[in-house]
């Protein structure tokens, strides 16, 4: 059994590594979520997103999320990989992957993991476009 994969890197996310970490012969389902940088938001063009992290705490929180998901559902393996630094349109900012015996658990856990990651893990994005830069902080644009 491969271990869970929990990473925070400035280098590109490897979707293959995430899938390889979660695929198991005793699991019939894999759900994978990718967050990708959009080229616009609210009709305004976006040139890039700059992601900032507080790495030691972000990693601790991601490990906690994995443990909480395991307590809520019967899962195979998990992969949580967030990237930070400067990302252009189409690049992958986050990958969540989870395997389970049957698909219900994988869908529920995958959805919960990305929802909870987005609302709790110390990571921030700054939108950079032709009209300037803005930090996103929760629901606020600062």
């Amino acid at each position, binding site marked *: 059994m491969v271990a869970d994969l929990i990473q925070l890197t400035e280098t590109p996310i490897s979707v293959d590594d995430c899938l390889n970490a979660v695929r198991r012969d005793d699991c019939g389902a894999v759900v994978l979520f990718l967050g990708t940088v959009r080229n616009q938001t609210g009709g305004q063009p976006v040139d890039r997103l700059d992601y900032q992290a*507080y790495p030691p705490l972000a990693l601790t929180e991601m490990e906690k999320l994995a443990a909480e998901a395991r307590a809520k559902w019967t899962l195979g393996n998990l992969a949580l990989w967030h990237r930070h630094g400067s990302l252009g349109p189409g690049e992958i900012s986050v990958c969540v992957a989870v395997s389970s015996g049957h698909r219900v658990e994988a869908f529920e856990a995958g959805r919960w993991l990305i929802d909870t990651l987005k609302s709790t893990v*110390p990571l*921030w994005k700054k939108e950079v476009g032709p009209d300037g830069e803005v*930090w*996103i902080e*929760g*629901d606020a644009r*600062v």
Partner: protein
Amino acid sequence: MTVRVLFFASLQNVVGSSELPFDVADGATASDLFQQLSLRWQGLGPYRKVLRVACGAEFVGWDHVLHAGDEVALLPPVSGG
């Protein structure tokens, strides 16, 4: 005593730095630290009610007592994903 303060996201614009040393009285709490920072950078004040604070890369309450050399991080609402 001196602690090291980390600022994230738009706090860096307010303070003009991502990280700096700051002097507080012995026995000061995270709340005391924030109050003194707000005196120096008044733009910080409105953040108080939405910020979380971490010490030594662990979330703590505002009543957490600081020690010399602590790394204290001020964390606005997050927006990863």
